[in-house]
Structure formats: structure tokens, C-alpha cells
């Protein structure tokens, strides 16, 4: 019986093979008590910290309401009261998601939260924000109403001006729907997952040193 089969076993994991190597690396980077800690640093005592988890919650509500809309297809909500309600739920969860994310982002900016080898955490969050804008944009294009028609014909000029329109056509409903419900949510979801794992790995960023203290430096290395 291997060490992993015995709860509480303490002998080192020396199994060979790719799977064991990945397991060792994952556990080394994120041991269970680091992945799901039941304590946090004392300085984590502000409402601003809540907006990260609120953003994640709103993302899941947007995913869930979008999944319900997907069950009967993109035209369902135009003809069904229940469908329209889930479209409204989808809309408002996205509005909340973006609002929470922007507050979270500004909070992290003013904490200079990229300090202490956390630059990649900032970058994944920033790219997730930009990806979310793209996801919302394609959602507006997939509404199948006057708003989506107008946004499509207006945005085509900008996309064509920089050459993107040659391959990404906002007037192609099928293409926009696929980007909205498959490609972009997958990218944003993966980025959010990576972002969360990085936060857990490095921990939340310590407070900025007050000016004049020993640890105060003119430029913090990311």
C-alpha cells in the first residue's frame, strides 16, 4: 500500500512517473492548508477584501443563469416569461460582476498588490477584466434585438479599422454566440481559476510600509 493510500501517512511520496511528479509539484506549491487555510493574516481587516469573493460569486451566478438560457437556445427568452426572467438575472448578475470586479481592481491597485512576486496575479486579474469586457460585448451582440443590431453595425467599423473584422464579425450572430458562450467564458474562467490559485499560493499582499519606516523603499519590486 502506498503512502497516499494511508491517511495520515508521513513517509515521503517517492512514486515515479509523470502523475506522481505533477502531484508532488502541486502539493509542494499548494499544500492543503495553503489551498484552503482556516486563518488569514491579521491585517486582512477591511471591507475591500470582500469584493474579490463577491466578484467570484457574481461570475458563478452569471454562468448559471447563462447555462439556463442555453438550455432552450438563444431565442427562448424573447417568447417566454421564464426565459425573460433568466435573461434579466443574467443581465443583472453581469452588471454586479463588472461592478464588483472594478471595485476589487481599484482596491488591489491602491494596495500595490503586485508586490512580493505577485505580478502574475495582477496580470491574470487584469487580463480577466479585459476578457470579461469581451465576453459582455459578445453577449450584447447575441441578444437578437435592436440593441444587438446597432452595436453590431457600429462596432464593425472599429473592428474592421484594425483588421480584426476580417476574422471576427460582430454581424455574424453564430460566431458571436459561440464566442460568448464557449470561448470567452472558458478563457475568463481559466484566468480566474489561475488568479485564485496564485492568491492562495502567495497569500494576500502585506500592508505597504509607512513612509520613513525601515522597510520603506522608493520602488517596490513586483
Amino acid at each position, binding site marked *: 500500500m502506498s503512502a497516499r493510500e494511508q491517511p495520515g501517512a508521513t513517509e515521503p511520496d517517492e512514486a515515479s512517473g509523470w502523475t506522481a511528479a505533477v502531484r508532488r509539484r502541486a502539493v509542494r506549491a499548494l499544500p492543503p492548508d495553503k489551498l*484552503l*487555510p*482556516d*486563518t488569514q*493574516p*491579521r*491585517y*486582512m481587516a477591511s471591507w475591500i477584501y470582500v469584493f474579490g*469573493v463577491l466578484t467570484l*460569486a457574481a461570475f458563478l*451566478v452569471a454562468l448559471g443563469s447563462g447555462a439556463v438560457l442555453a438550455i432552450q437556445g438563444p431565442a427562448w427568452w424573447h417568447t417566454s416569461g421564464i426565459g*425573460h426572467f433568466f*435573461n*434579466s*438575472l443574467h443581465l*443583472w*448578475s453581469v*452588471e454586479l460582476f*463588472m461592478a464588483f470586479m472594478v471595485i476589487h481592481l481599484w482596491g488591489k*491597485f*491602491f*494596495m*500595490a498588490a*503586485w508586490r512580493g*512576486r505577485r*505580478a502574475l496575479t*495582477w*496580470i491574470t486579474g487584469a*487580463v480577466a477584466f479585459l476578457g470579461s469586457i469581451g465576453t459582455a*460585448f459578445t453577449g*450584447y451582440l447575441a441578444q437578437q*434585438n*435592436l*440593441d*444587438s*443590431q*446597432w452595436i*453590431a*453595425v*457600429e462596432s464593425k467599423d*472599429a473592428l*474592421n*479599422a*484594425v483588421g480584426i473584422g*476580417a*476574422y471576427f*464579425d460582430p*454581424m*455574424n*450572430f453564430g460566431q458571436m454566440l459561440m464566442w460568448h458562450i464557449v470561448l470567452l467564458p472558458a478563457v475568463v474562467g481559466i484566468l480566474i481559476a489561475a488568479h485564485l490559485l496564485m492568491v492562495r499560493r502567495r*497569500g*494576500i499582499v*502585506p*500592508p*505597504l510600509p509607512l513612509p520613513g519606516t525601515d522597510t520603506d*523603499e522608493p*520602488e*517596490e*519590486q*513586483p
Partner: protein
Amino acid sequence: MSRRPRAAEPDPYSFGSRPYDLVKEFTIALILVLGLSIVLAALFSSPDEHPATIATWAKTDSADFTATALAELDGSSGTAQYGPPYNNATQGQKLGPVAPANLIGVTKPIDTAHDFVLGPLTSSPQTPAAAAALTRYTHAGTDQQNTWTGNYSTALDNANGDPAKIAPGDYGPVPTLLTALLAQAQAGSLDGQLLTESGAFYQTDYTLPLLLLADGSYLAALAGQDHLAGTQWGMMNETGSYPGQAWLWLYTFWYQVSPYNHSTNGDALVWGTMAALSLIFVFVPFIPGLRSIPRYIPVYRLIWRQHYRELREHDGT
């Protein structure tokens, strides 16, 4: 070149710790956000204004439809003069010396006379008069076609866009063709024909009908009534009084100010600007000066006020 040694990374828990239930926090947040979304959805619903159709356009504003159809036929419409990716009428917009769309070329070729006018007329049963007009037009030389469409365009302008008030003249088969196309549009068949011109049964690409709608003034008028026009910060608005894509405020802002709002390369300039700003945003941690801004704006003192208070109390003892 020597590199400044990286400062030792402080362990977050070296500042002390306190119990914190992440799973409980997440569960409460999820219930809270779900509840708030349900309340907002129940109270405010969501907008769903019916899409414009070519049929409603042709019925509501037949003069605008006819003028647009003529512009597609004689090659003077917005789409006909667009450039890549639809045709080579222009180079497209430039970003500095580069015309990105022109580099990629025409990837969605559109011949407005054929795709919007002659094709739909050819693929539908016509009256003998319309069929004869179609044959006469398609067998005429380009110069003759231009003479007919040019004369009709001038006459239409002189009649303030009303085909019923046009004086007799040398228009060839053009009035008959446009009348036949108007009838198809009003009957609703043109909406479907523009979707199926490729010959495929299943369709999800609305590029042709949307481009035709965009070439007229009907769709723009509807959008203007709903404060969606470009000069009304339209891209970030939603129909009715609903919040739209408020997060596009900075992108939309550039379209309201000089030089973006009057440059012939305005779209490319806005995208170039936003691309540069996005890169700066993503790479803030590596940009000297910018990454130090949080140190000079004391928001962090508010966020960590308890920590700093404890430090002061500790130093005081």
C-alpha cells in the same frame, strides 16, 4: 549590468493571523449575490426592443429604402465605398503609416449591386415588366448603367427623395428594378433572401441584411431615438433606461473628443489608444513611477488602518 537584489518576501502570516472561514465567506457571498440578482431582475427586468427588419424599413420609409437600394446599385453606398474586408474601394483606416485592414485584404467580398439588388431580383419570380427590366439592365454596358443610375439619382434628389414625384427622364430599367425590389422588401422576402444568398439552408450570419440596414437611415434613426448613436456615447448605452456596458466608458469617451471625433482614421486611433492603455494597465507592476502611485495616495492607510493602529499601539508600549 548589476541588478538590485530582490528584497526578501515577507511571509503574510509573520504579521500575525486570525481565524477566517473562506468557504463560509464564499457561501454567504454566493447566496447574497444570487439574492440581489433575483431582486434586481424581478424589480427591473431587462430590455428587449424588437429588431428592425428590412420589411418594416421598406414599409415605414419606402423612400429611404429606394434611395439606399439605388446607392447599392450604382456603388455609392457606405458598404460599396467601404474598402476591406468587403471590397477594394478604399484602403481602409490607417494607424500611422499602416492600413491594417488593407494588409489583410478582402475576406468577405461584397458586390453591393449584385448582392443587395440584382441577386435578390434574379432569384425571385418577377412580373414580365420587371424580368425584362432585369435583362435589359444586366445586358447593358457599365457606361449605360451608370447613365441610368446617375440620372435617376439626380432626379430622386430633385424630388426630395420621393420616387412618386420624379420627373420623366432617361432612367432605363432602374425605376422598374427598384420598384420590384421595394415590393420584395415590403413583402418580407428580402430579409430571408439576403440570409440565404450563399445557397446554404442553415444560416447564422446576418452580415448582408445588417449592412443593407446600416446603409440606410432607418436603423440609425431608431438607434438615435434610443440614445444609442455614436455621438450619444451609444456603444455603452442600452435601449430604454437600463444600464448598458458602462465599463466601455473610456473607449466611448475618445469618440466624443478631438482628434478622434473628426479624424478619418478615428476608429483606428481609438483602438490604438485603448490597446496602449490596456498594455499599461496589464503591466502596471513593471512600470516605474506608475507602480509607485499607491504609495503616494493614502488609500492604503484606510484599507490597513487597523494594522497601522496596532503598530502604533505596539510602538507606544
